[in-house]
């Protein structure tokens, strides 16, 4: 699973954001580092929704936060419209920020409890007002209406709203700056099931209405499939499979993808339930396994899996890439 290599990068003028060999490490004391993301490459085309899915500790949120530079990047590049976001610092970085906005996991914690929601939503406009032209309260009202919050509640504070409503306010704040790319980090995992669909639909609507490109991170395979055009499956800081959403769930090639799909309570019909019988625990990201990172839990390992890191390879001419020495063979589709 070591998924390195640039195979999944497309040579397409529509590519808006291209991440190459991204590496992120966090020091954990005594000289040890967590290898949170270890060389991942992917791109996002304009207007596309890219889903990143994986279990906790796989580095999916780190990837998202690295792109908008909430983390320090150790190596690699993030190309966005001629800028390398990984290298930008200070004022030039701040200048690009309005283009890339984020929706956070915890709707309550992501809103300042001591500020009125009107001020929360207009924060970006207050910062950029002079450079983007002036802004008026009409703009705030328009945004609030767009996400389904009655503007007459603008003077309330976040604790007077429910989790779902707070998430709508967070979306309005992100939309205020007319971003190109919206990064959604587990935006519905803190919400009740009955409210989850409201927010997912809202995101789809906003994507259409404002021409957004979405990066959608989640641990929920069904949710990711619902919103995404393309999906990356991550494991222990690496990508193991990338591809068109329907194709990837239809014909999963990587043993880990299959294990995930077989483990959800109502398993996908495309996998054998026994694929979910992967054992053992997630290895420590401080000392990740050599060779393929999935080798400690995989049922199909041979010697090569412990020595060589598999490279991303393409499935025929399809938009489907995987990194495995022993991919699950599928007779159809090839």
């Amino acid at each position, binding site marked *: 699973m070591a998924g390195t290599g640039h195979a999944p990068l497309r040579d397409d003028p529509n590519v808006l954001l291209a991440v190459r060999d991204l590496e992120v490490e966090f020091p954990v004391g005594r000289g040890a580092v967590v290898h949170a993301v270890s060389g991942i490459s992917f791109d996002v085309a304009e207007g596309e929704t890219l889903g990143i899915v994986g279990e906790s500790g796989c580095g999916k949120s780190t990837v998202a*936060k690295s792109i908008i530079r909430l983390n320090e990047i150790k190596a690699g590049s993030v190309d966005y419209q001629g800028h390398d976001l990984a290298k930008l610092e200070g004022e030039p970085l701040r200048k690009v920020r*309005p283009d890339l906005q984020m929706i956070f996991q915890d709707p309550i914690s992501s809103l300042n409890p*001591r500020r009125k929601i009107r001020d929360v939503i207009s924060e970006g406009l207050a910062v950029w007002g002079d450079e983007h032209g002036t802004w008026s309260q009409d703009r705030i009202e328009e945004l609030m209406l767009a996400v389904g919050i009655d503007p007459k509640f603008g003077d309330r504070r976040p604790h007077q709203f429910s989790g779902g409503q707070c998430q709508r306010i967070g979306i309005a704040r992100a939309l205020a700056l007319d971003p190109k790319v919206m990064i959604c980090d587990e935006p519905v995992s803190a919400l009740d099931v009955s409210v989850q669909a409201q927010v997912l639909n809202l995101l789809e609507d906003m994507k259409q209405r404002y021409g957004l490109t979405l990066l959608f991170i989640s641990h929920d395979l069904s949710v990711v499939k619902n919103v995404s055009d393309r999906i990356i499956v991550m494991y222990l800081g690496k990508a193991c499979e990338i591809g068109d959403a329907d194709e990837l769930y239809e014909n999963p090639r990587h043993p880990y993808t299959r294990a995930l799909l077989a483990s959800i309570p109502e398993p996908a019909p495309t996998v054998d339930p026994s694929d979910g019988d992967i054992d053992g625990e997630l290895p420590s990201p401080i000392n990740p396994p050599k060779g393929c990172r999935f080798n400690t839990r995989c049922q199909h390992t041979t010697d090569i899996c412990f020595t060589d890191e598999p490279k991303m390879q393409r499935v025929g001419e399809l938009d489907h890439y995987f990194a495995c020495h022993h991919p699950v063979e599928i007779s159809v589709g090839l």
Partner: protein
Amino acid sequence: MTADAQIPEIDLVALEEAPDDAVKKSLGIGFWISVAWLVLIVVISLLAPVLPLADPEKIGLGSKFQSPGGEGWFGFDSNGRDVFSRVIWGSRVSLTVGFIAVVAGLLIGGPLGMMAGYFRGWVDRVVSFAFLILLSFPALILALLIVNSVETRSLRVVALTLGVLAIAPVGRLARANTIVFAEREFVQAARVVGAKNTRILTRELLPNVLIPMGALALLGVAILIVAEGGLAFLGLSVEEGATWGKMILEGSSPGALKDGPHVAMFPIGIMFLTVLALNYAGDKVREFFDVRETAF
């Protein structure tokens, strides 16, 4: 489908029913009694010059250790000075010292602590180390050394000396609270929309850190009133005029306690009530805003 059609109207109706969170908690009657006492003390001490009080320094107004009664509500001390008047004039000094010291601590320690907590890295290491040194030095000895090294121990000197002692605890609390909030996602959200550090510190973090700091300030005034008493006991408080600490000292020799216990007990009582009120009000404010307590 347009987004507007998606707005579920019912959502807005449900929102109107959402009760205001503020009614959920109340500060309680004890808090208001405390506040009332503090207001009373502050007002009386402010009005001391215009109130019809006996001259606090005038010797021989009553007889030595005269008991409380019609002539002097709190009795008279060993020099026949009016204890009631002295307690009120003393409150001016004690409260001023406590207040100035806390404000000095807040103004210096607060920003330093917030910057340490927000920027982390080397800023944090330098500031935290400075706080640590200040804290590990025995507080009263430090105060004594400062106070003893000046020519005259004016009110300003004593207040600022105690203010130096307040910097480190205040700063540590500011730092701890800043760290708690700096990790919250709304700070990241502010960075994502392009807010600069100064804006994040003042608009996002300050309103959140201010409340625990305010609660601490109330407790701090109490602690510093007591500290002034300590200095007085060592003979090193403000030279001129009465303070609560000096009065307790004067009334606490075994001889004075034997013949006129009221000389010590009245200032003790008033100081006790004031410190209690400050402590209680501070605790309630902290509880009310539900801020995590940090041990230091």
